[in-house]
């Protein structure tokens, strides 16, 4: 069908694809949003009308070629329309993280010099106004939700629907202009600019061209044979490249439908109602759901519990094989079928996963048993490896070659090479154009032949040829004794335990490794409840001796498994402590995508680190914290430090004998 043909001259921009879809798939749903109790629906041709109206409205407001249009808000059709409308006008959409605090927003607005800002609601508008301060760099603010806005000075503010209305009435004047600008768009015109919440330093504006986006969308769509009948749920931050590729790139390329939840608090019910066929979620979502499932099953009656356990055991045995289409005995097939009727089917249904054809997870390593849990239910969950600079796809797992510990083979059109220091390099049609207003870091990331450093260290698995990522290249260090230090590798193993939410392993240049642990309040809290252990706060629960005991056991198990790998056996943890607060993006300890900022932590918790290495068994500390409402406060605590048994590696054992 047309959707998967090579792009002819006409299909070299998102607006062009929109026109194509409106023509060929006019009456198929393009967008749905849960609002006012039902799923409001827009077909492709309706969507085109809306977007054009908005674009003309933008023209009326004086949007120029090359302007930047910042978009801040939750996933809503109107916001996706704003992006495409901006493109139509020859401007560049710049989606921002809606949970960014004003200070973060100030930098990005300043850096991109956005003249227009589209805000989801009053809250975002307030932030923008605060962020720009006296500067008034923003010329037009367009808001989607009218609630509470009538008090504001509207000299440079408009309700999005009013802008559209203006566009509609003015279509006589602007239609020609708009078509002209759309026609100007070609494969090298900028499609979108996304700010990477860099793990270090200021965020960088990654400029992606139409070529980047459309080529990638085409390849990846073909790779998974996406059809116009797919349903996706758009719930991940719009500022994140993944959402842009799934909800705009691939959606426009294949013409499938993008569904927007009513809001964060109804996300799970909406997921269940829509039952997406093509689904992406970072590992933490899957982890969260699995924990949730287990907790809910705790309270189940005996019969249900037995059924569940019994069939989950079966699933673990044959489930993944069935999903991969590997041969399975007739009897087991039959039993699995029964299990599907009694447990798997209903379970997937209540989770909203019944209809998933292709599911992806990425961004972090996912725990093997979590991964297998979903796959054994018959959900085709796969891993991919990518980054903003590559317009997501670097490697991904083809159907039937799915494993928890690799990230698959090079995506179509992507070339890979691994430098001697283990860092992974790639080159692809998706490779970004440049960092906006930042030639030097562009140069340092992308060399003349277009090879881009991922910043991750990894190696090709002999045999399967799948890529395995160990850690961030710069985080891979050496211990004092010169052995390899790969904190992430160990942290992931730790985080696979439901009780452990986050872990930070230290030891670069030291003679042994230590770790900070964040317990998972849901899991541990539930455990505490069942053993009626009272606790007032995260801090109190974290300090509980029994909790320490459990965590220590986990750490020892991890040490044992780390010891298996001679290359990394040096990374076993000798001492650890459980942090008195959860690591939090608001405190700058993590990125918005929940990646640990090692630098920040190293200095912020210097006192704790010191204690971990000077043999003390407890340490007193004070930490500054930011509350939801932005107020700051100090947290005082005395933390216990525990020693952990380590496992001698095979080599050492031999030596001992």
């Amino acid at each position, binding site marked *: 069908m047309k959707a998967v043909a090579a792009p002819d001259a006409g299909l070299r921009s998102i607006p062009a694809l929109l026109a194509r879809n409106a023509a060929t798939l006019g009456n198929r749903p393009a967008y749905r949003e849960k609002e006012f109790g039902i799923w*409001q629906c827009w077909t492709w041709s309706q969507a085109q009308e809306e977007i054009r109206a908005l674009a003309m409205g933008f023209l009326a407001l004086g949007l120029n070629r090359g302007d930047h249009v910042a978009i801040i808000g939750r996933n809503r059709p109107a916001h996706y329309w704003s992006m495409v409308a901006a493109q139509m006008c020859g401007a560049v959409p710049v989606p921002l993280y809606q949970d960014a605090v004003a200070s973060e927003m100030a930098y990005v607005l300043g850096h991109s010099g956005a003249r227009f800002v589209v805000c989801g609601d009053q809250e975002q508008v307030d932030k923008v106004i605060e962020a720009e301060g006296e500067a008034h760099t923003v010329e037009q603010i367009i808001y989607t939700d009218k609630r509470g806005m009538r008090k504001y000075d509207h000299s440079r503010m408009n309700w999005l629907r009013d802008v559209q209305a203006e566009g509609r009435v003015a279509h006589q004047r602007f239609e020609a202009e708009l078509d002209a600008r759309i026609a100007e768009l070609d494969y090298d015109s900028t499609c979108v600019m996304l700010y990477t919440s860099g793990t270090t330093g200021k965020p960088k504006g990654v400029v992606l061209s139409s070529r980047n986006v459309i080529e990638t969308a085409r390849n990846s769509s073909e790779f998974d044979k996406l059809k116009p009948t797919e349903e996706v749920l758009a719930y991940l931050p719009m500022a994140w490249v993944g959402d842009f590729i799934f909800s705009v790139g691939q959606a426009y390329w294949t013409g499938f439908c993008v569904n927007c939840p009513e809001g964060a608090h109804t996300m799970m019910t909406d997921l269940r109602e829509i039952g997406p066929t093509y689904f992406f979620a970072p590992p933490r979502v899957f982890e969260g759901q699995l924990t949730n499932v287990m907790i809910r099953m705790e309270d189940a009656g005996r019969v249900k519990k037995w059924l569940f356990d019994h069939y989950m055991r079966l699933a673990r045995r044959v489930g993944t094989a069935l999903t991969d289409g590997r041969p399975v005995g007739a009897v087991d097939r039959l039993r699995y079928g029964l299990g599907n009727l009694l447990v798997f089917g209903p379970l997937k249904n209540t989770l909203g996963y019944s209809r998933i054809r292709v599911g992806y997870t990425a961004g972090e390593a996912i725990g093997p048993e979590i991964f297998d849990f979903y796959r054994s239910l018959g959900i085709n969950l796969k891993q991919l490896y990518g980054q903003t600079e590559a317009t997501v796809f670097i490697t991904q797992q083809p159907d039937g070659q799915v494993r928890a510990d690799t990230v698959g083979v090079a995506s179509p059109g992507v070339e890979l090479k691994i430098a001697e220091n283990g860092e992974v390099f790639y080159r692809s049609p998706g490779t970004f154009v440049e960092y906006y207003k930042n030639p030097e870091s562009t140069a340092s990331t992308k060399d003349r032949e277009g090879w881009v450093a991922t910043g991750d260290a990894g190696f090709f698995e002999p045999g399967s040829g799948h890529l395995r990522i160990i850690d961030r290249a710069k985080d891979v260090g050496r211990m004092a004794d010169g052995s390899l230090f790969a904190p992430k590798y160990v942290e992931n193993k730790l985080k696979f335990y439901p009780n452990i939410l986050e872990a930070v392993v230290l030891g670069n240049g030291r003679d042994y490794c230590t770790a900070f642990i964040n317990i998972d309040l849901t899991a541990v809290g539930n455990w505490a409840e069942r053993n009626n252990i009272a606790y007032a706060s995260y801090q109190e629960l974290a300090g509980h001796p029994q909790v320490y005991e459990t965590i220590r056991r986990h750490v020892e198990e991890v040490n044992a498994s780390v010891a298996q790998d001679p290359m990394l056996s040096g990374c076993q943890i000798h001492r650890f402590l459980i942090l008195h607060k959860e690591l939090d993006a608001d405190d700058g300890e993590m990125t918005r995508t929940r990646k640990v900022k090692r630098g920040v932590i190293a200095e912020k918790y210097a006192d704790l680190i010191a204690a971990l290495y000077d043999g003390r068994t407890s340490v007193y500390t004070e930490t500054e914290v930011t509350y939801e409402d932005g107020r700051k406060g100090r947290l005082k605590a005395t933390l216990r430090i525990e020693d952990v048994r380590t496992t001698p590696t095979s080599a050492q054992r031999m030596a001992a004998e």
Partner: protein
Amino acid sequence: MSPTSPTILSELAPPPAAPAPGTDGYITADGRKIGGVLMDLRHITLRFGGVTAIKDISFDIREGEIRAIIGPNGAGKSSMMNVMSGFYVPQEGEVWFRGAKRPPMRPYQVARQGLARTFQNIALFDGMSVLDNIMTGRLTMMKSSLLEQALWWGRAEAEETRHREQVEKIIDFLEIQNIRKTPVGRLPYGLKKRVELARALAAEPKLLMLDEPMAGMNVEEKEDMSRFILDVNDEFGTTIALIEHDMGVVMDLSDRVVVMDYGRKIGDGTPDEVRNNQEVIDAYLGVAHD
């Protein structure tokens, strides 16, 4: 339903209450225009057998304002509101609404004149879902005949959908989407109060009467409720009369305040005027004693 249909604001809001010619409106501190007299209560006296609940009270409520009636327990506030909503018929005095003297009529007829209210001890229909409860707010606007409904014919279904759309906007406005289908019986107190407000709003009233909207609420519930009350007044331009027991909350909310004690009016004016009214202070101190 097309997403470009105008929101509840433009549909529910009566034209901004600009001072009608001949009536002296006023401008509030935060710059809202207050219009002419919407409801005028003249020399109301209400007795139950021998007991006199209300003694010769007069005051008016103006278009677009938030008017509070406060007073210690047993001051006759609720009785006053029952008179306003036509549930009690005063022995003496007149109720004027929108420039006309109210003839003797049943409460449901009063409601149809454009009055909606909430109740001190919640009066929701426990057997129905939140949605249905709010829909009852629009019953007065339902026109389809019994036969049409029986056969789900003609107006019946169209009407159902049309009113559902309006109700959904209110649900969205009061942020109760996730309890839409729950039976109200199962809701916590705070939410019930909110649903009741929604039901009253659904009637698109000219005058919205709130009987102790914050009674028995915790601090943040009170804050939410205050926000909603202000938003309603601000976004829909709805005139609001509210009874409150505790003075603090009212003072921040209301434009003008009537103070009652033992069935008499002992104060009337802006929050500040009332706050400094000696009689009022005494009344409240008096309460503190007994």
